[in-house]
């Protein structure tokens, strides 16, 4: 009997291997410590290694900072989403796209520019109180800077929730009790708010550049030091286990919660304004003030500081880092292509909401150090000196973004177009080549650009997994920072910013952002 090659199952297996296996493997270590070279002989040895008051203090501090930042970012994101999706604010789509931009910029750019603005010799300090410089080296400023980096993500995710709301649900509330509309809207999008909170929390726990600039020791920095400074994979692996435990538990609880709330879906249609509230007079003025302040803090001041600090050394900085710039472009291009193709195949094969939620939420909830370590451990015997671990890490990290931006296109494509193709040919590849890819051209381009920008700015995973002798622009900027070459750092950052802005301008036409 002829057995046909099942592309769907093969693809599912591949995705499972790439995204989920590293974490499963890491868990395996905990219970079978002698399995591999990083294993321990007993649980007592592990407890001895991990149980230190200093380490626990750092862990709790990091979790506290994570929770506080996730809270402030979600609050800002929620307010913005409500303003931009539910009011009659003019040009709300433009505002939304401008406010999403900070999320695409590298976090080190924020901290570098803000230190340049508020630091001892910063522009703000020089102009105001040169003798009383503001002390920014504390957790409050860390939370502030991280909020500026991450608030666009909750805004984006909660906006998706609001776009999904059926207009009739709101109309029914208008008829039956209009005073409770806000409460109703908030309770309807609560699952999105919850997901946004936990994913932002994971982003914060993945962030190591901003805390290290502000000289605040965090748990992720401890792991990073073990890996990058002491090359102690074993210790780093065991340090990461509490994080793995916390995130797995959170993920399981959330998955259970969503199974009980079957109406939750992260997928969205194209932009459709709900227009629940009208902004008039003073409220409109306050809204504009809020939006302008946010834009100034997250884009205006960083761009201003970069221009001042660069001292016009763009050409020499670009000449110095030209190979790193080209490396970044090549690596981002390859990763973006890989991630986008995977996302389109996932969307083609799996229209089930639950599976899509899993593909989107799970990888986003895993902190970057955990992802890097799991891949180091998994590929230690065979592929460590290659680009494979790095590409796999990018795939896992950025696949959710690609899925999120491509979903609205796929919701629009009628299923029966594919069904008709399936009836006409038995070749899956022919369907992919002739039907799927041509139909998803626009989605492909949007996803490609978004992932390209994210890969271009990524630093933690890149630093841990990049093969020796290869350097990206972000890594070069970090090295220059350590040497104190601020004008070159500012110039290169400004070049990155302009490059990202040019790419992002293509996304401006996209309706799915």
């Amino acid at each position, binding site marked *: 009997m002829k057995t046909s090659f099942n592309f769907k199952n093969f693809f599912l297996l591949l995705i499972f291997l790439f995204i989920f296996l590293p974490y499963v493997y890491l868990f395996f270590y905990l219970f079978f410590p002698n399995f591999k070279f990083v294993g321990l002989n007993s649980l007592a040895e592990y407890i001895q290694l991990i149980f230190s008051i200093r380490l626990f203090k750092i862990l709790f501090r990091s979790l506290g900072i994570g929770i506080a930042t996730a809270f402030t970012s979600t609050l800002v994101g929620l307010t913005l989403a409500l303003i931009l999706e539910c009011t009659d604010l003019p040009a709300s789509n433009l505002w939304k796209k401008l406010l999403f931009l900070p999320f695409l910029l590298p976090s080190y750019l924020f901290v570098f520019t803000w230190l340049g603005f508020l630091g001892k010799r910063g522009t703000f300090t020089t102009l105001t109180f040169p003798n009383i410089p503001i002390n920014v080296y504390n957790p409050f400023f860390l939370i502030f800077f991280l909020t500026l980096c991450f608030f666009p993500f909750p805004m984006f995710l909660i906006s998706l929730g609001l776009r999904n709301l*059926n207009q*009739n*649900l709101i*109309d*029914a*509330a*208008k*008829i*039956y*009790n*209009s*005073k*409770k509309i806000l409460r*109703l809207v908030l*309770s*309807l999008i*609560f699952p999105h708010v919850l997901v946004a909170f936990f994913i932002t929390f994971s982003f914060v726990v993945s962030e190591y550049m901003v805390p290290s600039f502000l000289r605040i020791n965090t748990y992720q920095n401890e792991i990073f030091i073990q890996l990058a400074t002491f090359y102690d994979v074993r210790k780093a692996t065991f340090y990461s286990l509490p994080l793995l435990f916390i995130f797995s538990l959170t993920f399981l609880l959330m998955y259970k919660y969503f199974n009980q*709330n*079957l*109406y939750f879906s992260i997928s969205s249609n194209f932009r459709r304004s709900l227009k629940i509230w009208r902004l008039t007079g003073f409220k409109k003025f306050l809204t504009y003030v809020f939006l302008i302040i946010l834009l100034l803090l997250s884009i205006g001041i960083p761009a201003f500081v970069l221009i001042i600090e660069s001292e016009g050394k763009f050409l020499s900085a670009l000449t110095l880092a030209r190979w790193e710039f080209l490396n970044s472009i090549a690596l981002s291009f390859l990763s973006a292509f890989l991630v986008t193709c995977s996302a389109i195949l996932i969307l083609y094969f799996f229209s089930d909401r639950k599976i899509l939620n899993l593909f989107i939420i799970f990888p986003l909830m895993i902190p970057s150090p955990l992802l890097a370590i799991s891949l180091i451990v998994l590929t230690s015997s065979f592929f460590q000196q290659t680009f494979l671990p790095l590409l796999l890490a990018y795939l896992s990290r950025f696949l959710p973004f690609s899925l999120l931006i491509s979903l609205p296109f796929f919701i629009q494509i009628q299923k029966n177009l594919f069904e008709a193709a399936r009836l006409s040919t038995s070749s899956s590849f022919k369907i992919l080549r002739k039907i799927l890819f041509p139909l998803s051209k626009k989605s492909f381009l949007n996803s490609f650009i978004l992932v390209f920008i994210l890969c271009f700015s990524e630093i933690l995973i890149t630093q841990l997994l990049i093969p020796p002798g290869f350097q990206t622009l972000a890594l070069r900027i970090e090295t220059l920072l350590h040497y104190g070459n601020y004008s070159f750092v500012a110039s290169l950052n400004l070049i990155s910013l302009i490059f990202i802005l040019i790419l992002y301008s293509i996304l401006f036409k996209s309706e799915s952002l």
Partner: protein
Amino acid sequence: MSYIILNNIWKKFDKNWVLKNLNLKIKKEEIFGIFGPSGCGKTTLLRIITGLEKPDKGKVVLRDKIVCNRKTFVPPEDRNVSLIFQDLALWPHLTVEEHLKFVTTNEEKIERILKELGLLKLKDLRPYQLSQGQKQKVAIARALVKETDILLLDEPFSSLDLKSKAQIKNLLKGLQKKKGLTLIYVTHDISDLMDLCERVGWMENGRIRKIERTKNFVKKFKDFIRCKS
């Protein structure tokens, strides 16, 4: 004496006129059917009565009070009109009881309505845990708990099987008599009209073409179908 009056109503979406010079008068405690093909403006008409849409031109009078004209616009929450949506618009995260609590805080009234509609045992369930017929009942319960005397129904039986449809129709008839409701029932199913309505308005291209007693309407409608075929 007319209880609901729509006078010279015009409404357009983008550049398309959906309602053109629509005139309609409905008596108190009447069950009035609106019948017409898809896209003729039936739902828009109901949304204008509730205040969810504002007409471009025309006057709406409810209970002898102008609720919409060039100068006045009473918002939906102040019109005291209930609407049962085509897709029912049940809030997915709320239980049956919470749906009613959203409308009123009067626990006694909530329990009475739940009992009347046979929903007491289901009060802790959410919409996705209910059958289509049960969902219909929840939508009716939410409409009734508002203590209104005007109830608008926008093709609410379209997704029901015959048995459930008959049950809900009987329930509605009983409630209409008991509570003295004025009902406007929008449909494109002629059998629903025969079972429920006293008078029927034939709507086409954004206008009410004819208003007839249901019996006459059904007879004429059959002739109309015959002529067309």
